[in-house]
């Protein structure tokens, strides 16, 4: 049993090391890095198939927004959200390192597109924010990888505990550390749930 658990822990670890490294670094950057703001790199008014007003089908609007973004230089982006606001459709078509803000006026055969790009470190940090809720195509594959990483993290912890239990040497320090951190974490959760000081 011990060799099996050790192999699971080891293979999960090496298989996900690269992804975990990305998320560790980008997480650290998000918390400590102060944010890397994007800068606008281009504006254009590409031709589009006119869209309707507030009642137009979202799929049509998203297709028009995606086509406009592609003409503006952003290929293969995933539309994150389109909303009707102040008399026009406003959509954001995203890749990780850059995105396009698209404005579609009902009945107009051209769109307003503003293209934004993150600096290199900022772009990598944006990988941290890709989630299943907005994901299509390649972003969906990345978001699924995050689910796999999340489950693997739990598996690391559990297999790590089993490996610890299999140790034949003195384990009191380990138990003390595990108990202290577990009590602290559960206490933190209780603090937030109850609102008690």
């Amino acid at each position, binding site marked *: 049993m011990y060799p099996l658990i050790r*192999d699971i822990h*080891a*293979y999960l*670890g*090496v*298989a*996900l*090391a*690269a*992804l*975990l*490294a*990305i998320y*560790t670094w980008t*997480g*650290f950057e*998000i*918390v400590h890095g102060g944010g890397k703001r994007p800068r606008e790199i281009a504006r254009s008014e590409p031709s589009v198939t006119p869209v309707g007003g507030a009642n137009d089908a979202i799929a049509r609007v998203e297709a028009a927004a995606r086509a406009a973004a592609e003409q503006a230089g952003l290929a293969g982006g995933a539309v994150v959200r389109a909303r009707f606001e102040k008399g026009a459709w406003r959509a954001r078509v995203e*890749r*990780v*390192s850059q995105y396009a803000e698209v404005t579609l006026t009902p009945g107009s055969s051209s769109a307003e597109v503003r293209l934004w790009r993150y600096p290199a470190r900022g*772009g990598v940090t944006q*990988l941290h924010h*890709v*989630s*299943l*809720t907005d994901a299509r195509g*390649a*972003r969906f*594959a*990345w*978001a699924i*990888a*995050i*689910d796999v990483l*999340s*489950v*693997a*993290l*739990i598996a*690391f*912890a559990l297999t*790590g*505990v089993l490996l*610890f239990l299999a140790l034949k040497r003195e384990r009191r320090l*380990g138990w003390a*550390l*595990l108990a*202290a*951190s*577990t009590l*602290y*974490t559960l206490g*933190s*959760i209780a*603090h*937030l*749930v109850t*609102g008690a*000081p």
Partner: protein
Amino acid sequence: MRRWLVDLHLYLGLISLPYVVLFGVSSILWNHDVRGTRTSEVWERVVAAPHDGKPRDRAVAVRDALGLHGLVHERDVRQAPDGGLRFRVIYPARRATVEVDATGHARVNETYYGFAEVIRALHGFHGWDVSAWGYSWMLFTDLSVGAFAFFIVTGVWLAWLRVNARAPLLGTGALAAVVTGALAAWIW
């Protein structure tokens, strides 16, 4: 050296284990945008509200007098014509909107965003040093994130030391790293 590093890998692992599990669960909640059930409560109390000083400082004094804890942003503080204040108090998974008039009569609308939001909020929670707990969780986060980096390095090194399994282990890691890099480049 090997024994020392294995022990450190082990003990750091045990210290950060609850954080790792919490991180895994909270990542799933974030990835699937799972939210908690929101509940609100409105209550009123009379407190000694200061009339002098900067608005934010006055808001913080009222917050403390009401027994609330959390962050008060300067941008969230509004002054009323009668000298009262309206402000928000922000804490993980909780928000409170406070309206206090010049006589010190305060009306508090507290919202709790549910258990799922608590778990989501703990994901990398950092920088809110308005409470001793907040500061300690900040340190625990930094320790655990540092531990992740340590696990990756020592884990790969430990894989290298397993002579009989070195090739399949490191081969798996290399292949996975290439796939990860290719996927990141694809969505870049």
